[in-house]
């Protein structure tokens, strides 16, 4: 599949240009047919936006191979268009945390933007990405992993069909209850430190919570 192995990274969020479209067009002028990794930085791009990125690239005989961004929305848009994508989390310490196919396999991802409120229930047959808080009294469940770009204060169930390798990640993990596969755990009493994303997973038959791995 990869006939053109060399991949050129194009940053389309460059303050020299008035918009990412202009930026992309200008940068492509100097490239002859190549494979691209589009670095969207913190741009929030929809699927339509990304289709435009791809169209502009194709006009210059370039092929988009992958997309990376610190915006969850952009990452998810890229995923849903079937592109390899990397989600980069920058925490308060300016360490970057890269989530990609290596540590999280994103299959059929469902994406929800906004707070999940008391009494609401979200379910996914693959992974579940939530951009917002999961409030007390709300429940989210996925056959795969759950990633919450916000606070988890309600109930989350990952691996709902029994996959015990599933994980639950959130910027703040303060759930009432956590479930992974058939394991159930009550949420931790103590408040987590701010600014550190955490992940719950099964380790020797028990649900443990640890800082999200930095790579």
């Amino acid at each position, binding site marked *: 599949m990869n006939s053109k192995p060399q991949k050129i990274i194009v940053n389309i969020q460059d303050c020299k240009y008035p918009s990412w479209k202009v930026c992309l067009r200008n940068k492509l002028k100097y490239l002859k047919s190549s494979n691209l990794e589009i670095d969207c930085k913190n741009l929030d791009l929809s699927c339509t936006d990304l289709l435009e990125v791809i169209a502009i690239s194709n006009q210059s005989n370039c092929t988009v191979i992958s997309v990376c961004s610190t915006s969850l929305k952009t990452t998810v848009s890229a995923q849903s268009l079937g592109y390899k994508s990397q989600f980069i989390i920058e925490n308060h310490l300016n360490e970057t945390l890269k989530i990609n196919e290596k540590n999280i396999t994103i299959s059929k991802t469902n994406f929800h933007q*906004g*707070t999940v*409120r*008391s*009494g*609401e229930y979200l379910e996914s047959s693959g992974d579940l990405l939530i951009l917002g*808080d999961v*409030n*007390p*009294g709300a429940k989210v469940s996925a056959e795969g992993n759950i990633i919450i770009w916000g606070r988890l*204060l309600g109930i989350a169930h990952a691996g709902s069909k029994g996959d015990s390798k599933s994980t639950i990640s959130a910027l703040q993990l303060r759930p009432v209850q956590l479930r992974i596969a058939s394991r159930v755990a009550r949420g931790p009493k103590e408040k987590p430190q701010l600014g550190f994303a955490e992940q719950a997973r099964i380790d020797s038959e028990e649900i443990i919570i640890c800082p999200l791995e930095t790579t």
Partner: protein
Amino acid sequence: MATDTRVILICSGKGGVGKTTLTANLGISLARQGFTTAVLDADFGLRNLDLLLGLENRIVYTAQEVLEEECRLDQALVKHKQEANLSLLPAGNPRMLDWLKPDDMRRIVDMLKEQFNYVLIDCPAGVEDGFKNAMAASQEAIVVTNPEVSAVRDADRVIGLLNTNAIKPVQLVLNRVRPKMMANQEMLSIDDVTDILALPLLGLVLEDEQVIVSTNRGEPLTLNSLNSPAAKCYLNIAKRLQGEDIPLIDPLEESSGFGAKFRRLMQTKIF
């Protein structure tokens, strides 16, 4: 004839948090500012907006007769004695719950929109049909809650439903705030509540014994007791609803009481 009528649902999920009290006081305040205002009692099961406004004995017809076309709207509207800009459309009997549909609510509100600047709908507790009917006719909403876990949980549920029904804006009123308890962390703080509910805060209302006295008298505080702590809060809420930029009271400052106020006065060199 008013064309840009604001139809505001006053709701909470949980009962007894202060919806009816807010509706009555907001109604009086808006009327006093010169806006023609209708308050609609949509709590057919436990109607008491008429009581709070002291209008119980003047009711002849209700929303029910209007819908059944047994009377005209203006025959059912009860004008307030002191505030001529304020009218109440009373709730019919509880059996209305059996047949009332969202479309009926919309019909009533459409009629009210023809002659009022504001229509405030006092919503029943719960998230069932009574709430859904009232929501169907509303454009925007005020969610009332108390600094208690259960009230906040129910408010959150209601906000979710308002969002899915495209009601906006949705703003928050935090009622029965006790500055001392908040300062001692015996009560959820304002941040605790707004953190979860993630709504713009339209105002705080302090816990105030005068509220109970005024309820029993059928005279909302904003009518005759403008100096009571809660009345000031209600007046501020009415002004903010108009878009006026009035800072929120700081409950911590309220709790530090006379000593602190005295010091502030000294500092501002009034003496």
